[in-house]
């Protein structure tokens, strides 16, 4: 063997080193069984929620349809129920369900209603010319128009077809759909938050697994720890993009299959293409920030239990940040919104909401640069902490020493 150093391929730059780690992690995660579960999990959730929503709608439709007991003369009862059946189909089951009742002669409608013990919501008596609706104030108020419609149809000897209405939807001008845009903003924030939390958890598990496999020292000896951290973050970011692509396609398929479209949401102020692009960029920043924090925590922990203990406060804090950013949506010009835009952890969420609410891309470029700066700082800090706290031997560290959690607590006191 010759030992000329040039045959070894030469020194790696930090970025190349990060890519070596990222490539390994990416392919390892992508071809693992856990990734399949990771992919399928949200799809199951999506399918279950779609199913639940469909069933719920059905139940709501049936449960929400009032039942009116008809206590008229038999001929009038027949005329009323026939008329209701006739026009109900055309009104997309908007009318109440009419149930013929056999009332005792001379019985007051209120007594008839009481005798039904909740089987009907109100009692319709009198004649089609002069219908009387007996029931709770809310019920009779709500049902008076449908009853008038049915009575009119019952009196009409010549059935008339209801004319079809041609629908002509148009984009509502800006300023009039602020609430709708707020809904788009909040939806964007929620999706961003859920994805970020899911992936930050994954990167944490990945590091703990790495420590368990004792690989970390080989990595630390060969390349700077910053590159290890960055590589791991890049890998999980790439994994997340694969996940987002799969989930996005699946969700899009489900929505389109169900006859829905993005047009149902108010168009964001910056437009859909820019909003989606900013969504990806802000997701990357939010994930890299949180991922860096979680990686630092992971470097302190040596077991899954320690990870859970250490990551709980961060998770709770992130939840608070999310609520903070959500609250800021409601008051975009307030000090709270400005603060949320500046604080690195809430900035991606708040700025995404801003993209939905206000036009203009320049503030977003500034925000992305600001967040990138914080990502760099967090990665460097995490890497330094890792080197300082974890890779040490002797009684103060490692298996011979105190647990990672205790070390973390000591660090907090320092």
């Amino acid at each position: 063997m010759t030992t000329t150093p040039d045959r070894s391929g030469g020194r790696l730059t930090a970025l190349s080193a990060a890519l070596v780690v990222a490539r390994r992690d990416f392919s390892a995660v992508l071809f693992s069984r856990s990734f399949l579960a990771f992919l399928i999990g949200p799809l199951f959730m999506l399918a279950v929620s779609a199913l639940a929503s469909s069933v719920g709608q059905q139940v709501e439709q049936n449960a929400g349809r009032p039942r009116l007991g008809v206590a008229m003369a038999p001929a009038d009862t027949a005329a009323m129920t026939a008329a209701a059946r006739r026009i109900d189909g055309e009104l997309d089951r908007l009318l109440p369900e009419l149930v013929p009742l056999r009332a005792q002669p001379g019985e007051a409608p209120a007594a008839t209603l009481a005798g039904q013990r909740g089987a009907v919501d109100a009692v319709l008596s009198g004649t089609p010319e002069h219908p009387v609706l007996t029931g709770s104030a809310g019920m009779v108020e709500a049902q008076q128009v449908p009853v008038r419609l049915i009575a009119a149809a019952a009196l009409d000897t010549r059935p008339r077809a209801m004319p079809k209405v041609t629908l002509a939807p148009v984009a509502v001008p800006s300023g009039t759909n602020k609430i709708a845009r707020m809904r788009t903003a909040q939806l964007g924030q929620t999706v961003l938050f859920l994805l970020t939390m899911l992936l930050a958890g994954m990167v944490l598990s990945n590091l703990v697994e790495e420590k368990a496999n004792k690989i970390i020292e080989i990595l630390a000896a060969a390349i700077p720890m910053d590159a290890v951290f960055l590589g791991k973050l890049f890998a999980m970011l790439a994994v997340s993009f694969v996940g987002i692509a799969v989930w996005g396609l699946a969700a899009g398929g489900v929505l389109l299959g169900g006859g829905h479209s993005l047009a149902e949401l108010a168009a964001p102020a910056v437009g859909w293409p820019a909003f989606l692009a900013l969504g990806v960029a802000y997701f990357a920043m939010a994930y890299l920030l949180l991922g860096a924090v979680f990686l630092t925590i992971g470097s302190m922990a040596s077991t899954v239990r320690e990870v859970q203990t250490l990551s709980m406060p961060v998770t709770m804090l992130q939840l608070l940040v999310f609520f903070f950013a959500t609250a800021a949506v409601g008051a975009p010009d307030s000090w709270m919104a400005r603060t949320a835009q500046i604080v690195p952890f809430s900035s991606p969420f708040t700025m995404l909401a801003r993209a939905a609410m206000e036009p203009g891309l320049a503030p977003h470029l500034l925000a992305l640069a600001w967040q990138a700066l914080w990502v760099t700082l967090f990665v460097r800090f995490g890497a330094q902490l890792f080197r300082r706290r974890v890779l040490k031997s002797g009684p103060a560290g490692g298996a011979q020493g105190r647990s990672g959690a205790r070390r973390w607590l000591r660090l907090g006191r320092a």
Partner: protein
Amino acid sequence: MKMDLGNWQAAGNAPDSQPVPAGAATDRPLAIEARGLVKRFDGFTAVDGVDLTVPEGAIYGVLGPNGAGKTTTLRMLLGIIDPDEGVRRVLGAERPHDVAHAIGYLPEERGLYPAMKAHEAIAFVGALRGLPLAEGRRRGKLLLEEHGLGYAADRQIRQMSKGMAQQVQILACLVHEPRLVIFDEPFSGLDALNQGKLEKMMRGLAERGTTVIFSTHVIAHAERLCDRIAIIAGGKVPFAGPVDLARDRIRPQVRLETRAAEGAWRAALPADARHDRKLDGSSFFYFPLPESGIEPLLRALIQGEAGILSLSIERAGLHDAFVAIAGEAAARALDANPEEERAR
């Protein structure tokens, strides 16, 4: 390309007991130069002023009891952790990561990705050191083939025995043909057969100019392999230099066999001489060579009619030297800082 690292497979279980000639490497430039390295963890001083100079092409042993600071010292040399005090220069660079492509490292706690195939694991470690992945895969397969593990090239690490995985890891830290190889406790976990193969491989590396540094607490390996050693005890280096110099630190042992057990001549022996009596009535005495030399002792024995059957002077082994040097250092450290040394 032939990856000639010394044939591990063919080495057999009888390691060559001839050490690499001492001094041959001393006039070479230094692969490692460290001065006054100090590392503290939470107030505990793990390494306390370590100086090391390792010539290029040497096989250098870092010896010490458990918890002495060997691993921390090696980690500082590799740049895994930075010293709190002191300077280090590795292959001419002050930042070890700047020359990472020319260094190979086997950590004490072995680890490879369990799901990786053997040749992929080798290629990955090579890639971390700047070797293109494709070339790493090619060399990985070649190395495994040459060392009798070709059949396992496509086997996942998790499917291998601990010893086999360790061999893969050793090959992985050599795949990029480093100029400096640092092994932390390389023999632990290997059976006697593979320990012999590894010794031969290390010799092969040194013969080709690669500097080999390894830590161990098994002195026999160092005695067979090293031309220079450093003994670390209590975070300090009480001795660093040629193996012979370490042996010379303790006086040679006299082994005396006499016909009689008692007599006036016994006054010539040190009071703490060890005495064993044989069944045939003869006696053995063991004691350090007196400072006055062998001649006065010999005269006294003859004049006292000790009935000398045999007398030999045995040079101290490295094990004895290590025990004496490390023991003294530990005792000194305990006197200086009893709390810290008990923790260690």
